[in-house]
């Protein structure tokens, strides 16, 4: 048992509780309150410190790209919904990134958005001994993309889709086939893995950069009204776009740090998007663009960029904790400091979203302080 005393708790849902205690047992938050008593517990004094839920990097490819070896882009077919990222995830590749040092305790590990449908996301903790011990949920999302990156990959090989119209045609065709799929008529792995997407049980994360791409999503997916659409990237989103009228569509904003593969960074209309957030649109802050370009610093720096551009610090926090958890369908386990949730949290000397003087004091994954844990180092 662990008793964290007198911390300033930011619960990830927008609330702040000063001088509050947390009791952790078996990796789960058992109790939250003032002056809690727990005679047998190890006590961690958090007076004057800020406590946050573990940050969640909604989409990334940690553990699946190691040096020049990539296991997250199966480019042999533009339609690959049956690809499951769990088979590509190397726990050492994840551990090596030391994401927990910046307070990140979970990430939605995903195939790269270079196929029209690229495969299935799984949510993993950011440190552990085995992929399946770190796994929070598999089949958490289906990754798709209609950006020009897809055309670049397949067009160069003289394969379809070489153009946007071919991308969209392929997407519609695949979804139509899947919506009439009957296993009795023969097993089809593509349709079989898309059925839960069409029924709305797995969200469709679809990568878009431009306004035109977002409009294309709106038109293309209209007949499939159960699909839970989440636009990723969304660099050119404005409050006047047709797509924002559909309140069921959520967003994961793309990386704003590396300009290497995202020339659209300078187009981002912060005030518009902040207005959309205030009006209740589910918008997560991500650190992923058209590719993985991230490090342990990226999510926090992206969060800081939103804070710098006028989003309130508690709102920023929600969008790297509870909103990602909801979009990934893991909000029953992680993403906020609430009784019954995993004890994934970080303690800082101040609020790292607001101040660079804030240094990390402890980071817990399921109640275990990663900064004190003797970490197994691999041969690299």
């Amino acid at each position, binding site marked *: 048992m662990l008793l964290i005393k007198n911390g300033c708790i930011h619960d990830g849902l927008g609330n702040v509780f000063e001088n509050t205690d947390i009791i952790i047992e078996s990796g789960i938050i058992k109790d939250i309150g003032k002056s809690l008593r727990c005679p047998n517990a190890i006590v961690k004094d958090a007076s004057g410190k800020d406590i946050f839920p573990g940050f969640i990097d909604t989409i990334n490819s940690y553990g699946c790209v190691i*040096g020049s070896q990539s296991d997250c882009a199966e480019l042999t077919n533009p339609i690959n919904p049956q690809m499951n990222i769990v088979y590509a995830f190397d726990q050492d590749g994840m551990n*090596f990134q030391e994401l927990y040092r910046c307070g990140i305790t979970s990430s939605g590990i995903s195939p790269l958005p270079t196929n029209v449908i690229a495969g299935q996301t799984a949510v993993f903790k950011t440190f552990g001994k085995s992929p399946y011990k770190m796994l929070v949920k598999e089949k958490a999302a289906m990754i798709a993309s209609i950006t020009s990156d897809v055309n670049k990959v397949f067009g160069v090989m003289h394969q379809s889709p070489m153009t946007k119209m071919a991308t969209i045609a392929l997407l519609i065709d695949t979804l139509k086939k899947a919506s009439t799929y009957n296993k009795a008529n023969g097993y089809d792995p593509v349709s079989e893995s898309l059925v839960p997407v069409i029924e709305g049980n797995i969200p469709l994360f679809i990568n878009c950069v431009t306004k035109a791409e977002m409009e294309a999503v709106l038109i293309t997916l209209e007949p499939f009204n159960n699909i839970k659409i989440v636009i990723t990237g969304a660099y050119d989103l404005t409050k006047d776009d047709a797509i924002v009228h559909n309140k069921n569509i959520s967003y994961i904003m793309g990386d704003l*740090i590396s300009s290497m593969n995202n020339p659209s960074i300078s187009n981002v209309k912060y005030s518009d998007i902040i207005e959309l957030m205030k009006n209740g649109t589910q918008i997560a802050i991500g650190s992923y663009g058209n590719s*993985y370009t991230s490090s342990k610093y990226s999510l926090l720096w992206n969060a*800081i960029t939103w*804070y710098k551009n006028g989003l309130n610090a508690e709102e920023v926090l929600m969008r790297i904790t509870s909103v990602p958890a909801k979009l990934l369908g893991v909000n029953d386990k992680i993403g906020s400091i609430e009784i019954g949730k995993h004890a994934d949290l970080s303690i800082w000397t101040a609020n790292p979203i607001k101040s*660079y*003087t804030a240094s990390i004091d402890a980071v817990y994954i399921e109640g275990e302080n990663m900064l004190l844990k003797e970490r197994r180092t691999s041969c690299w």
Partner: protein
Amino acid sequence: MLVIKGAKIYTSAGKIYDKGDILIKNGKIEKVVGESIDVPQDSQVYNAEGYVVIPGIVDAHSHIGCFGSTMGEQNANELTNPCTAQLEAIYSIDTSHPDFIKAFKAGITTSVIAPGSHNVIGGLACAVKSYGHSIKDMCVKNPVALKVALGGSAKAIYGARNQAPMTRMAIAQIIRDTFIKAKEYMKKKEDAGNDTNKMPPYDASLENVCRVLSREIPIKVHCQQFDMLTAIRISEEFNIDFTLDHAWGSSDFYNEIACVKNLKGVLYGPINIYLSPGESGKVDIECLSELDKRGVCCSLITDSPVINPDIILAHAGEAVRQGLSVEKAIEMLTINPAKIIGLEDRLGSIEEGKDADIVIFDKTPAVETDSNVKCTIINGQIVYRA
């Protein structure tokens, strides 16, 4: 004339004024004091009360203007020969590229623009202001260094073509061969004196290497981890000045770095690197405090367009998170890089007589994450106002 009034001033010259004024005249800093000065007639006044002023940021390792809208459209790497010492980055710089606007909006007033890291000897780097009418107008000094790159970059290009360098052994040898040839070339030129018949045939590449051998400019070495020991060894063999650029993994070699004689400085970063085994395996920004304590001149860099220019402030911030003082962090963005590139007589601090390159923030940079640039001044001219 321009007067900046009432700001907190980090001068990067040993002094911090809680509230002071700066007088700018003819593009130079005329006066900086910790009190209110009388505004001369016909002066423009910038009321900076409550704001924080630092010297213009010097980004000592950048490639802005050398790439198009994607990394594919590039003029930074002449991949036809691993040794292209005769080339000068200055001819690849498109000063109308939007990266220059991004740079001055981020408070970067001078960038050292270098050839890329895919050639072992890439060519000459120059120092360029972020604003001006033409490259001639903007260039502060050309050359400031000869770019050299150790490690995987050149191997990946030439090795794949079954050409040298395929290994680090060949990289070191290409550098050594070139320097030995340049030494001979220099000797022949000296021996020839005024006798044109004895003069060796003109060699543009060796001419530039001679500038390093005569210690007019340093080599600017892209390196990380154990590769930096190769840089140190070569600097000692030829008694030449050098800088360690990127320098990830410096924390393994504090003694070696602190003790080597001809090191101009460590140009550290960027730190948002996707870690992988081998040469991208160690990112250790905490090394800056320790190197600084040991007297090594350190600075932070963007390597733009690899990262967005404004992220240089996040780098300074992360160094502060690791325990570096704010004053030191600001020095690592300003006077330290100016010293490293040999332009501390003109750039890097707010002192009388220096170029009036100044950045005004609403809050303390590298401390408050929402510190924004309110105004950038280059050569005394307001080039950006938020």
